[in-house]
Every structure is written in structure tokens, then in C-alpha cells.
């Protein structure tokens, strides 16, 4: 298992990345086209920033197949693809029995997790 991260795992990572991208782009397209069909003629207004997001309303919207919530889910999955890449690398280092790099990779994951938890609106 010495060069596991170099070959087999990299193929797996490549596949996982492609799957993540295909799923997220499909969701974004489905949600986006639905949204445009319903609201495309409306006037756009993005000149001023009005933070309006609530995770619970997105989750609620998903159960009703709401267009914007579906796009949100797609973007969240897209944001998750690099994190998946890090997580799979951690697995690879662990399989290689490389303790140092398993630890380093877990530190990176912990930092991202910290970031997720500290992200609530200030």
C-alpha cells in the first residue's frame, strides 16, 4: 500500500469529483430553469446587499421542491467537493499507514469544520 495515494486513490478522487460536479450542476440547472420559468421576467435587484438566508427555510423549501432551495443544495454540494477531496485523501494516508499525513489532513478537515461552525451570521 505504499503508493496508494499516488495511483488508486487518485483515480477514486477523480471519480468522486466528477460525480460531485455532475450532481451539483444538475441540481443548479433544474432549480435555475424552474426559477427562471417562474420569475425570469421580474426585475433584478442586486445593487445592494441584503443578507437573507436561513438554513431552516432552505431545508423546508427542499421538501416542497422550491427552485431556490434546490439551487442552494446544488451550490452546497459544489462547495463540498473540495472537502470530499480532502476527506478521501485522509483515508488514503490512513491506508498507507502514514500517521503524520493522516494527522495533517485531519487538521485541515478540523479547520474547515471550525469554519462551518463559526459561519453563523455575525
Amino acid at each position: 500500500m505504499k503508493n496508494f495515494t499516488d495511483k488508486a486513490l487518485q483515480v477514486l478522487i477523480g471519480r468522486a469529483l466528477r460525480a460531485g460536479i455532475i450532481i451539483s450542476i444538475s441540481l443548479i440547472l433544474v432549480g435555475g430553469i424552474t426559477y427562471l420559468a417562474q420569475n425570469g421576467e421580474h426585475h433584478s435587484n442586486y445593487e445592494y446587499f441584503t443578507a437573507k438566508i436561513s438554513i431552516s427555510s432552505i431545508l423546508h423549501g427542499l421538501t416542497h421542491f422550491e427552485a431556490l432551495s434546490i439551487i442552494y443544495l446544488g451550490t452546497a454540494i459544489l462547495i463540498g467537493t473540495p472537502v470530499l477531496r480532502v476527506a478521501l485523501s485522509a483515508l488514503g494516508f490512513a491506508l498507507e499507514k502514514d500517521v503524520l499525513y493522516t494527522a495533517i489532513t485531519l487538521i485541515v478537515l478540523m479547520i474547515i469544520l471550525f469554519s462551518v461552525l463559526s459561519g453563523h451570521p455575525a
Partner: protein
Amino acid sequence: MTIITLTLVIFAGSYFAGLIGSMTGLGGGFIVIPLLTLILHVDIHYAIGASLLSVIATSSGAGAAYVKEGIINLRLAMFLEIATTAGATAGALFSVYVPTRIIPVLIGIILIFSSIMSLRKKEELHCRDFSKFSERLKLNGTYEVNGQSKDYSIINVAGGFFSMLFAGVLSGLLGIGSGALKVFAMDTIMRVPFKVSTTTSNFMIGVTAAASAVIYFQRGFIDPVISMPVAVGVIFGSLSGAKLLHRINSPKILRLIFSVVVGVLALQMIYKAIQGGN
């Protein structure tokens, strides 16, 4: 402007950004911020969110292709990502305290730096110096040139690490990938061969952007209506770019045009921000 017009314009711009970005190795996020803020008058907060998303899309999209070739130095990437993700998290959290007017100026400066960087002549350096730190961290590696395997070693690990911390803060603060900065740090400070530094940086920009995107997502910067054409456009653009790249041998002129365009846009962003007109 109606939402459908806005969507189509952003899609066209993002497709172009992804196309040119993947052909020149500049990443797709490059043109998204100036397009949104200068041309479409979208608020900088939404532009930052959209840019982060385009960085992730470029990184993961290209990553699916690059990893197969196995030139990424995964250990180097992971070690340096401690610095970039920590920096990005700090930058995103700190961004609340930075006056909004300064942000476009900083973005403009980075864009100018990046476009100059992309014009730099790429000479393949080959370092065989010994570094105890790099040896202990198993950062040295090999890459293939014309079917031949070449060893390389890395120096100045600490210097590289701190540069990455800085690149991470800028990335988190401004919503950019700061890929040019990462490549610069790896090439000139750590002496990583260019072939390795480009792909390794491409992996790192995605992870760095994700670390701050999870914060900006929760703050509502990543608007679904704007994100939609950006994500789709950049992905499809970079796919077309990767295909075209096989047919065009020298993207040199392309790179020059792109750098000039980005440079001009960047100057305009700085000028507008300093003038205070919005």
C-alpha cells in the same frame, strides 16, 4: 434589467472566464468579480460569493482531469492547506471589520498582480538542494517529463508555509482563489517545479475557497440566482477550454489579451472605489 437577461449575461461572462481560465491556467474566478461589479452593478458581497463558487468549480473541474496524471504533490498540498484554510477562515471572519470600500481596491491589486504573474516566463527550475525539514515532512517528489521520471526537492518550507497563510487570509477576505500568489510562493520560495506547482495550487485553491465559502454561504453572500449562471458557465467553459487546449498549441497571445483585459478591469475597480462612486 430582468432576471433572465442578468442570468444570460452572467452565464456568457462566466463561460468565457472558464474557457480562457482553463486554457491559460489562470482559473475561472478571475473575470467574475469585475463583470458583476463593474458591468452589472451587482453588490460586491454577492460578487465575492459568486467568485468563491467559481474558484471551487474551476478547481474541482480541473482536478477531475489533473489527478489522473498524478503530478499533484498531495503531501505538499495538504501540509500547506493547514496554512491556507486557517488563513481563509480568519480572513472570512475578519472581513466583517474591513470597510467595504477597501475591498475592491485590494481585489484590483491582486488581479493586477495575477495578470502580471501569468505573463511571466515559465522556466523549469530543478532543485536538488537538501532541506532537512522537507525531507522529514516527505515533501520531495518526482514528476514525469517525456516519460522520464525526475526527482525534485523543496526548500524553505517555513517561508512557503507563511506565504500560504497570507494567501489564505487574502482569499478569505476577498473571495478569490489567490492561485497566482500560491504558484508564486511555491515557485520562487519553495522551488517547486512549475508543472507540479500549477496543479498543486489548483487543488489548493478549491480547498481554500471552500474553507471561507462555508462562512459566506451562511451569511447569504452566495445568492442562488447569481450563483446559478456562474457555476454552470464556469464549469462548461472550463470543459470547452480543456478540449480546445489540445488543438491550440500556444495560448500565449490569448494569455496576453486576457491579462490586459483583467488588468484594465482591475484598474477600473480601484479607480471607482477610490472615487467613491458606486
